């Protein structure tokens, strides 16, 4: 019954797109588009990225986001300052806008860095097994034994503060998590017969890992990556708080949140607004991740 439906639909979609086969990316997009929540996430992230790129058209960095104005401290939201002002009289809207540049880019770069390195290590460990696995995973255990923040402090102290070093520091601390997730995902795919069949065709190891194993193991990896976006954004603020991250007065969501916590009782909007910004960013990444995971799996096509 289900089979019949499946075949019925398959022929229907084929008829719609005529005989030519859709390209891989197009068909992924086709499947992604059907997921309303994922589209919502994508639009949300699109808006945020748009705002961060064109932030200087909405507000003036020097005048609104950085310079202090003691006459306009702690104003509630009104028509002039739609998100109000903080304890130094800076416009919250402008700070959120410019803060998104750093938060989004550091979050993305951190995850991209740790995902790439972690996935390679985990893939090698899982695929080759034995001694390679033991050595790589014990190295990961050593990294995992050092608390992430201490690790990041050490890296920043060694390389000096700065945006790039911050990303490296945050990324280093996350490598073992990715390595472990990728390794276990690979172990579950490695034993499948189509991997053996690929070997029987004379496929090289690197190609088997990249083309046959990783795409089949992508689900848990994407979930791990999107979950990490949120902690990465918050992680920057922890480092900023002890003076190793983004230096004030540069606006950044995490540090805005932590700066404002002393005002929480009487001016809760100072905490809520950057909090909502972080929540929206993280949520959009999670929704996109969920949608991608489904779209990349052709078995869920219909």
């Amino acid at each position, binding site marked *: 019954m289900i089979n019949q439906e*499946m*075949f019925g639909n*398959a022929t229907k979609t084929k008829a719609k797109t005529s*005989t030519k*086969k*859709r390209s891989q990316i197009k068909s992924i997009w086709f499947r992604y588009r059907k997921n309303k929540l994922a589209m919502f996430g994508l639009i949300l992230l699109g808006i945020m990225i748009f705002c961060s790129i064109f932030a200087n058209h909405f507000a003036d960095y020097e005048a609104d986001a950085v310079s202090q104005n003691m006459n306009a401290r702690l104003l509630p939201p009104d028509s002039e300052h739609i998100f109000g002002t903080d304890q130094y009289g800076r416009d919250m809207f402008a700070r959120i806008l410019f803060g998104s540049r750093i938060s989004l880019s550091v979050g993305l770069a951190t995850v991209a860095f740790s995902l790439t390195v972690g996935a390679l290590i985990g893939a090698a460990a899982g695929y080759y*097994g*034995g001694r390679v696995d033991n050595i790589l995973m014990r190295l990961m255990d050593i990294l995992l034994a050092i608390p992430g923040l201490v690790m990041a402090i050490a890296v920043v102290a060694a390389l000096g503060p700065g945006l790039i070093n911050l990303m490296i520091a945050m990324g280093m601390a996350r490598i073992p998590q990715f390595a472990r997730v990728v390794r276990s995902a690979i172990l579950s795919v490695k034993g*499948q*017969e*189509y991997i*053996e*069949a*690929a*070997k*029987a*065709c*004379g*496929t*090289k190891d690197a190609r088997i890992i990249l*083309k*046959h194993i990783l*795409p*089949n193991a992508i689900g848990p990896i994407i979930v791990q990556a999107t979950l990490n976006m949120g902690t990465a954004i918050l992680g920057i603020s922890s480092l900023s708080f002890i003076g190793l991250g983004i230096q004030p007065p540069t606006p950044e969501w995490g540090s805005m949140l932590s700066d404002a916590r002393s005002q929480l009782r009487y001016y809760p909007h100072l905490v809520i607004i950057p909090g909502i910004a972080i929540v929206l960013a993280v949520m959009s990444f999670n929704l996109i991740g969920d949608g991608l995971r489904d779209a*990349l*799996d*052709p*078995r869920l*096509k219909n």
Partner: protein
Amino acid sequence: MPDKLLEINDLNVVYETDDALVYAVNGLDLTINKGETLGLVGETGAGKTTTALSIMGLLPDKTGFIKGGQIKFEDIDITKATENDMKLIRGESVSMIFQDPMTSLNPILTIGDQISEVLELHKKSLNKEQISKRVDEILQLVGIPPDRKGEYPHQFSGGMKQRVVIAIALACEPKLLLADEPTTALDVTIQAQVLEMMKDLKEKLNTAVLLITHDLGVVSEICDRVAVMYAGEIIEIGTTEDIFGGSYRHPYTDGLFGSIPDLTRSTRRLNPIEGLMPDSTNLPEGCKFHTRCCKCKEICKTVNPQFKINGTHFIRCH
């Protein structure tokens, strides 16, 4: 004398586990000539698949070892070839069809991509268009409309998947095809189609086939010669007529024939072989079959018999 394509001499394969040594293949001799179909039959656990994996050089790492003997494919000794040499041989000169078509296709790649991958790996001179043309041809050959090449394995039925698997195996026109129970997972009508197709393709491409199966009916249908395997040894080998029509057979082969249900005979019961295959961690002395043989003599318990030769028919019995 026909041209030898593959020659296996005194092959011994052992699986080493923490608990025990498993003697999977013991002193196996086998030759396959160019363009010939050899059926390899035997009970489960007789070492049929292990033999095929040894030929591919794909025994599991760290547990499966070739302990002795030689596998000569054309002029190359596969037991001594490096991993890189093997990668060139696999898929191009020797390819393998796995037992289960449901799991031996990658679920997230289209079947067209999976067929063209073999071509990309081994036929470096072809450009994209030529590869795509070749994929169309090979799909046509196995009876799948080429415009379905953009579809994924889950959109095909079992028989079609098995034909895709065969298409992948034949894409580079290998000299030797190892088919490990290619029809076991299929129902009889599809089985007939697939066998018919393999027969046709073999004639078109002049590929030698090692067909591993439990099914004597399949063997009689398409094989030129048959080898019967028991506990890691060949106990009988001969042309299909020798084995199916011959008056004198190994008692084990007799037992296998006695276990086939027959529509036309009126006997109520089958005559299966008593007992089970000996534990391959602890093989008996003498003839490995003597514990189950109904014609067992004293000598069978101590001395492993040599082949008795009658023309093309070899029987390992006293």
